């Protein structure tokens, strides 16, 4: 269901609060990553407070669902970063993951060395191709990449296509043929 078209049509404060809670609940249900599931309700409350603070400061009511999704995103992002900082995860994540793979051999993972090769090959691409290719690898659809880059669709598609060919060629030279 497209939530961007949702506007608050409730008149009373209680109805309005109910609408905000409902939208935020849906947003957090969709966006909360696994490691934050235990605190999803707290995060939703924190997001609601942020919205109320903004309304109080700006003296204007939030009327759209998309703004609430925006707040949900920033709340989750802040919490992910806060936890990351608090845990001070070692940079040796690769080694840790290798150990996990060793303990759980059934777990599918990328070919060893592919990630480093991929990074190296990406950084060798000219910027005009590299940026659309990275967005593609991030899972952005062509229309979404066009929006991010403020660029015409055909141009972005061509650059992505050519960039991926160059990327695969580079990876093949390094012994990877994904």
């Amino acid at each position, binding site marked *: 269901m497209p939530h961007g078209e949702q506007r608050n049509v409730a008149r009373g404060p209680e109805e309005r609060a109910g609408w905000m809670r409902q939208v935020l609940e849906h947003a957090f249900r969709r966006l909360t990553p696994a490691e934050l599931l235990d605190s999803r309700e707290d995060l939703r409350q924190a997001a609601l407070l942020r919205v109320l603070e903004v309304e109080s400061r*700006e003296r204007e009511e939030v009327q759209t669902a998309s*703004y609430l999704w925006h707040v949900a995103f920033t709340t989750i992002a802040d919490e992910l970063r806060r936890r990351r900082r608090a845990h001070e995860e070692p940079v040796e994540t690769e080694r840790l993951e290798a150990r996990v793979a060793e303990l759980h051999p059934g777990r599918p993972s990328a070919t060893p060395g592919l990630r480093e090769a991929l990074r190296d090959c990406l*950084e060798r691409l000219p910027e*005009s191709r590299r940026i659309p290719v990275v967005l593609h*690898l991030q*899972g952005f659809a062509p229309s979404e990449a066009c929006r991010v880059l403020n660029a015409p669709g055909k141009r972005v598609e061509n650059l992505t296509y050519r960039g991926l060919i160059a990327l*695969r060629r580079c990876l093949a030279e390094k012994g990877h043929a*994904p």
Partner: protein
Amino acid sequence: MSDPLLQAFQENRELAPGCATPEEIWRAVAGLEVQARTAALVDHTIRCGDCARLWRLAREAQAESAPVAVVTPIQAAGRWRWGVVASAGLAVAASLLLVLRQPATENPERGSPEARIASATARELPREAFLLRWAPQGEGARYRVQVTLPDLTELDSAVDLTVSEHLVPPAALARVPAGSDVLWRVEARLLDGRTMTSPPFRTRVR
């Protein structure tokens, strides 16, 4: 995610210094950042799995929360090596034509018809003091301005302005004959993250 390339990219959990704020990532994903900054942020995700993850999260949130809206790109002041100047010109043309032909979108992140920015500039200005002014949009608002010829060739642009005015350098107007009009428009980013876009304004060069 069956493509091993996507899997390899998205499995990265490493951190890299110089991460952007979530707000900045949100804006870049929404296409509201200047292109040079967007490119830098995307580049950063090659090495930083943390930011890459936030990009995917922002993409998902925006895909869920907003209907596909007509994009009205503002060409940034920064360099973007698309190589073909003509395509950049066409994009500028398309964006301004969209603004001229269509009512403002209902997408809340991009403003609403009743929340448009008003010009506070005289109908005609001397080229040596071509100071564009518009109604301020509240404390903390940041502005982006784009100035073009009527054929939509870009003359000047400015980003991240903290005041509601912009002086177009005389050099940018050098090839504009006296008595000709230029078009300009403003995008305001408010403190709460909302964005408003003005209609295109016409000002004559004296």
